[in-house]
C-alpha cells in the first residue's frame, strides 16, 4: 500500500500507470470483441478513408478499420510482452538464485552459460530464434524470453550472493529452516524491489522488440492485427494515407513510454540510493 501511494504521488509514476491501465483496458475490450468495427472485415468501398466519424483513425488499403485493428494489435503486443517477460523473469530468477546459493563450480558454469547468451546483441539472438522456429507469435515470445533470461539471472545473482552471507540467513539455517524456505522467504522476498524495476523495464523493451520483429515480418503473421505489421504496411502508402503511419506509430510510442515512466518511478521509489539522495 505504501508503495502504491508513492507511485500515485510520483508524477511520472502517475502518468505511466494511467497509460498502462488505459492500454490494458483497450486490450481487454478488444479481446472480448468490443471494437467499433470488425477488425478483420474488409470493406472495399471504404478503402483508404481518412479519419472520420465512422472510422476514427481511418481505414487501410483493404478497407479495414484502423482503430479496431489497433485495439487488437495492442492486445497481441501485450500478450507477447507479458508472457515473454514472465518466462524470462521466472527462469532467470531461478538460475540466478541457484547460482548464488550453490556457489562454487555451479555458479561458474551457470553464469558462464548466461555470458554466452549475453555475448549476442539482443536482436541477433532474436533473429537466430526466428531462423529456428520460423516466424510467428510463439517465436516472438521465445526470442524475447531467451534474450532477457540472462539479464534477470544477473540482476538476481549479485544481491542474492550478498544476502546469502548475511546473519539472518545463517540464523535461519541454524534454526533448521529448509533450503526452499530460505530461498523463497529470505532471499526471493528481499529481491522483489530490484526484480519489479527490471520487469517493468523489460516490458518496455519487449514491446519495442515485438513491434520490431513483426515489422520485419518475423513476428505475428497477417491477417492478425499487429502494430509492427501495420507500420510495415504503411510504408508504401504513407503519402496517400499518413494516418496509417501516424496512429500505429503513436500507439506503440505511448505504450512503451508508459512502461518507461512507470519503471523510472519504481526505481526512484524502491532504490535506497535515490531515496537517500532525495532525503
Amino acid at each position, binding site marked *: 500500500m505504501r508503495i502504491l501511494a508513492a507511485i500515485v504521488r510520483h508524477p511520472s509514476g502517475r502518468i505511466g500507470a494511467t497509460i498502462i491501465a488505459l492500454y490494458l483496458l483497450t486490450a481487454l475490450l478488444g479481446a472480448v470483441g468490443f471494437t467499433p468495427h470488425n477488425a478483420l472485415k474488409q470493406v472495399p468501398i471504404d478503402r483508404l478513408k481518412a479519419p472520420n466519424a465512422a472510422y476514427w483513425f481511418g481505414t487501410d488499403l483493404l478497407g479495414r478499420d484502423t482503430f479496431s485493428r489497433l485495439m487488437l494489435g495492442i492486445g497481441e503486443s501485450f500478450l507477447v510482452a507479458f508472457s515473454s517477460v514472465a518466462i524470462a523473469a521466472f527462469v532467470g530468477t531461478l538460475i540466478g538464485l541457484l547460482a548464488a546459493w550453490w556457489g562454487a563450480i555451479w555458479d561458474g558454469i551457470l553464469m558462464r552459460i548466461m555470458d554466452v547468451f549475453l555475448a549476442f546483441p539482443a536482436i541477433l539472438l532474436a533473429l537466430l530464434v526466428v531462423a529456428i522456429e520460423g516466424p510467428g507469435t510463439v517465436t516472438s515470445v521465445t526470442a524475447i524470453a531467451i534474450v532477457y533470461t540472462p539479464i534477470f539471472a544477473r540482476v538476481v545473482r549479485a544481491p542474492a550472493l550478498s544476502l546469502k552471507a548475511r546473519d539472518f540467513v545463517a540464523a535461519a539455517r541454524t534454526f533448521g529452516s529448509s533450503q526452499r524456505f530460505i530461498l523463497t522467504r529470505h532471499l526471493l522476498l528481499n529481491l522483489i524491489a530490484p526484480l519489479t524495476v527490471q520487469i517493468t523495464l523489460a516490458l518496455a523493451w519487449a514491446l519495442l522488440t515485438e513491434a520490431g520483429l513483426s515489422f520485419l515480418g518475423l513476428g505475428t503473421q497477417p491477417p492478425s492485427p499487429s502494430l509492427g505489421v501495420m507500420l510495415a504496411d504503411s510504408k508504401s502508402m*504513407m503519402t496517400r494515407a499518413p494516418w496509417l*503511419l501516424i496512429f500505429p506509430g503513436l500507439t506503440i510510442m505511448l505504450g512503451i513510454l508508459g512502461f518507461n515512466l512507470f519503471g523510472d518511478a519504481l526505481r526512484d521509489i524502491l532504490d535506497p540510493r535515490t531515496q537517500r539522495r532525495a532525503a
Partner: protein
Amino acid sequence: MNYLTQRLLTFPLILLGVSVLVFFAIRLVPGDAITAMLGTEAGLLTPAQRASLASYFGIDQPIVTQYGHWVLGLLQGDFGISTTYGKPVLPVILARFPLTLELALFSMVIALAVGVPAGVFAATHNERPSDLVVRLVAMLGQSTPSFVIGLVFIYVLSVYFHILPAMGSFTSLFSDPLGNLGQMILPAITLGFAFAASVTRVSRSAMLDVLGDDYVRTARSKGAPARSVVWHHALPNALIPVVTLSGVEFGYLLGGAVIVEQIFALPGLGRLTLDAISQRDYALVEGAVLFIAFNFMVVNLLVDLAYAALDPRIRLGGR
C-alpha cells in the same frame, strides 16, 4: 585472480560457447541448404548430383565432424563457403562491414554531440522547466522504435520537401564521399535519436551525482567560475558512465541495425544476416553471427578496461 586476467581468460571460453551455440542452433533450422539454394530446381537434381553438392559444401558428414572442421577452418580464417554467393564467407562479411562501422560511428557521434550537452544543461537546470522539457524529450526518444522515427523522416521529407532519400544503389565513402554522406545521414540520425536520448539521461544523472560531490563544492568555494566547475571539474568524472553506455550501444550497432538498414535499403551486416537466415545459408549465418558476437565481446571488454582506466576508485582486482 586479477579482474583483467579473469576477463581475458574467460574470453576464449565464452567465444567457444558462442560458436557451439551458433553452429548447433543453425542445424535445428528446418529445411536443407541445397533446396533453399536452388528453390524448385532442387527437385530436378539426381540423387548423385545432390550428394556431390552436399559433399562440396561438407554437409554430408556427421554433425560433430562438421563442427570440428568448421572450428579448425575458423582458426585459419576459413569461414566456409556461402551457398547464396558461391564465395568464401569472410570476404562477403568484410565487404558489408565498412557500412555498418560507418553507420555505428556516425550515430555515436550524433548521440554524443547532442546527448552530453543536453544532459549537462538539464543537470545544471535541475527541476526547472527547461530540465523537465529535456527529460521529456529524452524519455520520448527512448520510447520510440527506430522504425517509427525512420518512417516519419521519410514521410516528412517526401511530403513536405519532395525529396526521397536515395535508396537502392549504395555508394561507398571512398568512391563518392558526398553521395555516401547523403545516404547515411538519415539512417544515422534515426539510430542516433534513441542513442542520444539514453546519453542525455545518463549524463544528466551522472552530472547531478558529481555536482553533489565534495570536491565540486571545494572548487566552488575556492571561487572557481560556475562554467569552469561544470565543464572542467565535474564533466570528466560524469562522463565515465557515458563512456560505458556509448561503448555497449556502439557494440550493439556493430552487429548491424537490421531494422534501419531494412527501411533505408542499406546493404549492411544486419540485412546480410537477415537474408542469410531466410536463405538458410548455414555457413554465412554462422560466420556473420560469430563475427558480430566477437566484435560485441571485444567492444565490451574494451569498455570494461576503459572504465577501469578512467576511474581510479575501481580496483581491477576488487571484483
